[in-house]
């Protein structure tokens, strides 16, 4: 068992949760919708593909939704701007907490190569998942969960049930 020093120095999880809940409440109060994250990655995927082949992407059945006639650039979007804020906010916290450190988060006996390979594979799988679910932990589980949306609760239960079950098979990555 590792000593888990990396898990020290953070806020009490309930304090962090309540603070996050207040930000989410404010977001709903202002916008009528909640927080998001995966939408910004989807738009990035569209913009990168568009820079290679604009005509193909503007006709592509999924990506064409980001390139409608008269629509602004896909990055002129609430979630994209919010995610830029997430990056800057995270950076401020990391810097004032003196926690910035280049490294790879992995189990104490897992190799860097294995971990990076798994991060890439997991990223591909998670990317596909966010599109079917139309959101991720932020947009569906947290925001949809707080507003008691049926599909969001179905998503949340499926995410945790699968992750707890699959964890056994990838335990070498995290131990």
């Amino acid at each position, binding site marked *: 068992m590792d000593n888990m020093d990396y898990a020290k120095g953070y806020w009490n999880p309930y304090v*962090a949760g309540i603070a996050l809940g207040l930000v989410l409440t404010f977001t709903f109060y202002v916008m009528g919708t909640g927080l998001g994250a995966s939408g910004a990655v989807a738009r990035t995927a*569209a913009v990168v593909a568009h820079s290679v082949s604009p005509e193909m992407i503007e006709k592509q059945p999924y990506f064409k939704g980001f390139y409608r006639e008269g629509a602004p650039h896909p990055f002129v979007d609430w979630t994209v701007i919010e995610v830029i804020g997430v990056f800057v906010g995270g950076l401020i916290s990391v810097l004032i907490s003196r926690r910035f450190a280049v490294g790879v988060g992995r189990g104490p006996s897992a190799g860097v190569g294995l971990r990076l390979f798994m991060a890439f594979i997991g990223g591909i799988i998670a990317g596909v998942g966010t599109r079917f679910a139309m959101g991720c932990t932020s947009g569906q589980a947290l925001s949809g969960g707080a507003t008691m949306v049926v599909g969001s609760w179905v998503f949340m239960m499926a995410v945790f049930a699968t992750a707890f079950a699959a964890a056994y098979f990838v335990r070498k990555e995290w131990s």
Partner: protein
Amino acid sequence: MGPLLYTGAISYETGLWLAFPIGLMFGFILEKAGFGDSRNLTNIFYFRDMRVLRVMFSALVTAMLGLIALSYAGLFDYNILVEDSLMKSYFWPQLVGGVIFGLGFVIGGYCPGTAIVGVASGKIDSIVFLIGMVFGIWVFAFGWPIWGNFYMSSDLGRITLWQFFGTSKDLMALIILVMALFAFVLARLGEKWGPYNE
């Protein structure tokens, strides 16, 4: 009266200006919760440290009760939320999407928002995860002929749990609150159990 965008109190442009400061607070709190590090995010699945459950459910319950409190105070029109701005539910795509996403979460070590904070923390694995996600979204987009119809299937419209179970909003919120408190107790017991500990 909120939601301000829907009652016409603010314009969409004003809303866009608020996206950055809201994101700033979101990212700051995610980092302070420890979510810039994939180990803190996956420890829940090994019953080592259930902080993901604690943060997530306390945030969910706070916002759920916060919106209900605002609506009782006459500051928030919950009907607008339910009728106009709530996310739509698609049962099967969201169930399947959740299963796929859960796999990606435990294998990849991040979810999208926390990976952004991971990048800000200097974590190489979070950058690789996000690059993987872009590839995953391309896989989804270019596989559209295979699953495009499924993606929009079982459309339930805007539907809440209390409508689905035929109860009231307040009772549903109370049930979720009790479930969350129960989950917090289970989290503590799970850490004591520690099935993966040596």
